[in-house]
């Protein structure tokens, strides 16, 4: 009908700068710190950064899956800790000496926890952030039960317990490899499969999805389970890195992880959560943390800088995208 009235708009330089701002910030900060402290650019330090980014990044990617469908999981930190605690408990009492079986059991339990999250958040219809907050309280209790309220550590744990977090393949930490593998797998799921299309579409316009016959509830349900599983795995990584299980293992990085997911929503596809963005944002946080420590500045500075970057980033999204982020929509 008629003549073509829609012309393909070339993306402007300004658009590209905002799209790739996080990546540019990563590079600029690396250069900045390397000028301040020449040792910063050493391979071992860069690998350290990647290891630090791995924990926040994996937990953040887990959180971002459920945020994509427009929901929230505030219990993901407790779920990470619980997974590690279960693993520690089954390994420690010597019932299951094989590490892999321990991991499977821990993930199975946390997968069920995701099912419970989804049952309340999706089927019963409690606002998800309230439901997950309440469930996380129960999980806190179980964590204390399993750890006895102390840092859990056992000399008899198989060496494999520390492989993920401490071993290296040549100069590359296994933790960084795990980070990249999980990121690649989730990127594939989100960007290349039908399921990924649906979780993003539901966060954008659930009514539209219902109308074309997409089972919105089922997709949301699965998203909650994936989030719990990925979050749980982040807990296993974190405990492996320290070699023990601390009660604050998950809750300590949960806020950073959620911030990474939100910050990531400014990357590549502004206004939409994406795995690539979460990865780049987690790396940014790690660079700042590492750089500040490396240059000998006090710790609180990193919190201030991270906070400023986050509030500017989400402020930018709120100003430029009238629909706002899924999961944190206003009124």
């Amino acid at each position: 009908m008629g003549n073509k009235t829609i012309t393909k708009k070339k993306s402007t330089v300004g658009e590209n700068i905002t799209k790739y701002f996080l990546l540019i910030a990563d590079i600029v900060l690396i250069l900045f710190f390397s000028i301040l402290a020449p040792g910063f650019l050493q391979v071992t330090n860069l690998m350290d950064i990647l290891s630090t980014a791995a924990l926040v990044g994996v937990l953040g990617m887990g959180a971002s899956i459920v945020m994509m469908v427009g929901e929230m999981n505030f219990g993901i930190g407790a779920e990470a800790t619980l997974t590690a605690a279960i693993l520690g408990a089954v390994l420690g009492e010597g019932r299951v000496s094989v590490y892999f079986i321990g991991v499977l059991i821990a993930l199975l339990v946390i997968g069920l926890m995701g099912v419970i999250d989804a049952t309340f958040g999706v089927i019963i219809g409690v606002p998800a952030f309230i439901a997950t907050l309440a469930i996380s309280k129960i999980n806190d209790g179980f964590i204390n039960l399993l750890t006895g309220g102390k840092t859990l550590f056992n000399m008899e744990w198989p060496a494999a317990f520390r492989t993920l977090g401490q071993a290296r393949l040549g100069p590359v930490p296994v933790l960084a490899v795990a980070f990249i593998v999980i990121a690649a797998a989730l990127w594939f799921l989100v960007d290349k499969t039908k399921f990924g299309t649906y979780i993003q579409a539901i966060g954008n316009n659930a009514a539209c999805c219902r109308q074309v016959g997409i089972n919105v509830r089922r997709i949301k349900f699965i998203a909650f389970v994936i989030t719990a599983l990925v979050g749980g795995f982040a807990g296993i990584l974190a405990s492996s890195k320290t070699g023990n299980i601390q009660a604050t293992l998950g809750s300590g990085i949960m806020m950073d992880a959620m911030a990474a997911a939100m910050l990531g929503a400014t990357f590549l596809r502004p206004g939409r959560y994406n795995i690539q963005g979460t990865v780049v944002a987690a790396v940014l946080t790690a660079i700042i943390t590492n750089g500040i420590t490396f240059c000998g500045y006090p710790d609180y500075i990193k919190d201030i800088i991270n906070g400023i970057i986050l509030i500017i980033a989400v402020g930018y999204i709120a100003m430029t995208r009238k629909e706002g982020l899924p999961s944190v929509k206003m009124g």
Partner: protein
Amino acid sequence: MRTVSNTAPLISIKEITKRFTGVTAVDHVSFDIGHNEIHALIGENGAGKSTICKMLTGVYAIDEGYIEVEGKKEEFKGPADSMKAGINMVYQERNLIGYLNAAQNICLGTENCKGIVLDQKAMMKRAESVRRKLGVDTPLDIPVEKMGAGAQQLVEIMRAASTEPKLLILDEPTASLGEGEIEPFLKFVKKLTTDIHISVIYITHKLEEIFAIADKVTVMADGKRTMTANIADITQDECIKAMIRSDKIKAVTVPDMNYEKAEESRLLDVHELTFDGKTHQVEFHVNRGEVVGFYGLVGAGRTETMEAISGIRRCDKKEFTFDGEKITKGDSFAMIQKGIILTPELRKNGIFPSLNLVENVCTLFVKRFASRIGMLKKKESYKFAKQVLEKNGTKFNSMGQLISHLSGGNMQKIIIGRSIEVENLKLLTVDEPTAGLDLGAKSEIYLKIRNLADNLGKSVVFISSELEELMKVCNRMYIFYDGNVVKELKREEFDNQVILEYALGGVGSGK
């Protein structure tokens, strides 16, 4: 033309009825839709058009009667069943995923996959074949959020067409289109029936569109079918007559107005307002002790105008005279202080659903019941709330019950009742106050409005989509079309045919 072996019509609607609590939205309606036919469905707001369509698409269950598709009785348990039977609908509001391109939106829910990987090429191919079939040239590879309203609509029609429907329902498809887009769109709809042989139910308010493309028209009024006819056999006037309800307007005690005298006591005087990026010609005034009706189609600007006056809607530029004072700015709080108050169109925006009756009445008067240090005087507010409720004849069990447990009519009585308690109230705007109420509750609202004007000397702006009630209650009426006031009528001049013509843009557009 496709040869049709089956002589039965494509769709036969047989005596279908839908009731909602207290209201019969569709009352034993029957009509047929033939093959390759554009069947227009018209009627005032609330006449039952959408309810019929929602029964056709399986969104609503049918209370009585049934639907036949090509002579076969069908029962739809949900939209999926209806789609399977060959019925698909494009809603008035857009249902698209903004960042996906047209091809991805067309294939949404039915994506092609190679293994587990999305097959973008296959989807593009499928979308292209639909596009070719419909003979449009909407680009398929850019995000739909970057497209205009017309192109977005075509994407939705392509999505509906990709399910190969026999009947396509279009709900006010031209409402979101610009002037230049409408004519090609109408040609396109016509081509749907001639080229790919699907029938169309075309819901619209615009009579000229119907006469341009429809084969048949069914007119609804008050939940009943008042006419089905071939377009060739009827005139626009006959359509308008059929849209007007049959029951005659009863005489209500509206005292005669001495307009000359009333003009001396003008309360509100408005010429133009600029909001939503457009300047609206809203030349109207309200006198003291007068009920003024605002009539027009949904979206004609009635609510927006009064929201602008009441300080609720942000204005780029406003200037009007109220009670002898020139007003150019002020939010809703400031306006209430001046004596302008509006009760909103959606009843749910006028109540606090999880608060009780006392709280719902007294939130407007917190200041009055606060002690010097800001403590709320419980007893006094209770007494006051009880007074308001009794004065307005509200039915309730206890003052502590939640307002959301009351009926719509009682809620409305509370909303209006507390508004008129505002000290120095001068102008009350009631926006669709009777929507969804039964006849008894409606008449009580009418009496309340008249009482305000006649006995208390207040002024009322009465916004409604029901012409009948405006004619019953108002002293004067303004008709809105496309954001502007197009006509002022005094009570003596009320004539529903004239009013409808103006409201449908028939006169204003120079016809």
